[in-house]
């Protein structure tokens, strides 16, 4: 997938991204309503959004759900993986469907992943299974408090 650098985004796409990170209207013709605010036609807005989605500038367009409200359970986990075993352990961890995402980070605790399951007991089961399969302790960092964020990326 081609990734466009920020400087490749034209002024109109930047305006679209800055305006449409939230507040997409809940009306029968929402693209038309949003386009009117931006001074674009409905077709132009749809075409630009589609192109940005296809090029990977937009990763998703739609409603963002509160994960906890959906009844799921989540836990940030980390492991200190010996460098020589890193790829094999990454493969084993990623193979589990409970692993929603996984990042390598520069630290002694060098693998950080999020477990997402339908119920809390399955978090424990998945973490234990990873420990058993790899022989490496999994530190669990469940969320105690989330600070609600108004984060918007400036395009």
């Amino acid at each position, binding site marked *: 997938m081609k990734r466009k650098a920020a400087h490749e985004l034209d002024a109109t796409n930047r305006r679209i991204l800055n305006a*449409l*990170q939230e507040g*997409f209207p809940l009306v029968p013709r929402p693209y038309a309503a949003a386009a009117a605010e931006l001074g674009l036609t409905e077709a132009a807005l749809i075409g630009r959004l589609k192109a940005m*989605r296809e090029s990977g500038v937009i*990763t998703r367009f739609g409603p963002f759900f509160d994960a906890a409200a959906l009844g799921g359970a989540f836990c940030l986990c980390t492991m200190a993986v010996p460098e020589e075993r890193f790829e094999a352990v990454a493969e084993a961890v990623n193979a589990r469907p409970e692993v929603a995402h996984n990042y390598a980070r520069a630290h002694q605790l060098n693998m950080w992943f999020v477990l997402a399951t339908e119920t809390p007991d399955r978090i424990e089961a998945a973490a234990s299974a990873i420990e058993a399969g790899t022989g490496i302790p999994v530190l669990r960092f469940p969320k105690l408090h989330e*600070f609600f964020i108004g984060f918007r990326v400036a395009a």
Partner: protein
Amino acid sequence: MSIDAVDRRIIAATQGGLAFEAAPYAVVADRLGLSEAEVIDRLASMQARGVIRRIGAAPNHYALGLTANGMTVWDVDDAVAVVLGEKVGALDDVSHAYLRPRNLPQWPYNLFAMVHGTTRAEVEEKRARIAVLLGEACRTHDVLYSTRILKKTGLRLVEGDR
């Protein structure tokens, strides 16, 4: 914030994104055998109840040039951790902020704040601003830069009722 079976079907049908068609809610309605008005009403209700946080675009940080991604971690006095966490979370530069349990002695940090920037130097500047904000309530802090995405899948709800 309870959701019923119809809400769940709407969530399952929209979590991959809305169609880039003039009437995207009608597309969802057709697929589920509901009316467009019911889909819109239920989405509005879920938004009002906080089940939906926002509706719109998720830009790719990397595509926007925000390639430096630092998980800043802070050992903040428990007595003021919630109050200060709110302030950190409210900063424009912070995309996620959470309190999590410490894991002593290996891990003394209880506040996690994700910071993005175009360069690590920019992330360091933002980290320095957080350090000022936390002041003496913070005993020690660190930043863990991501070096590679090993796996990334969106949140996926199992289709159908539980």
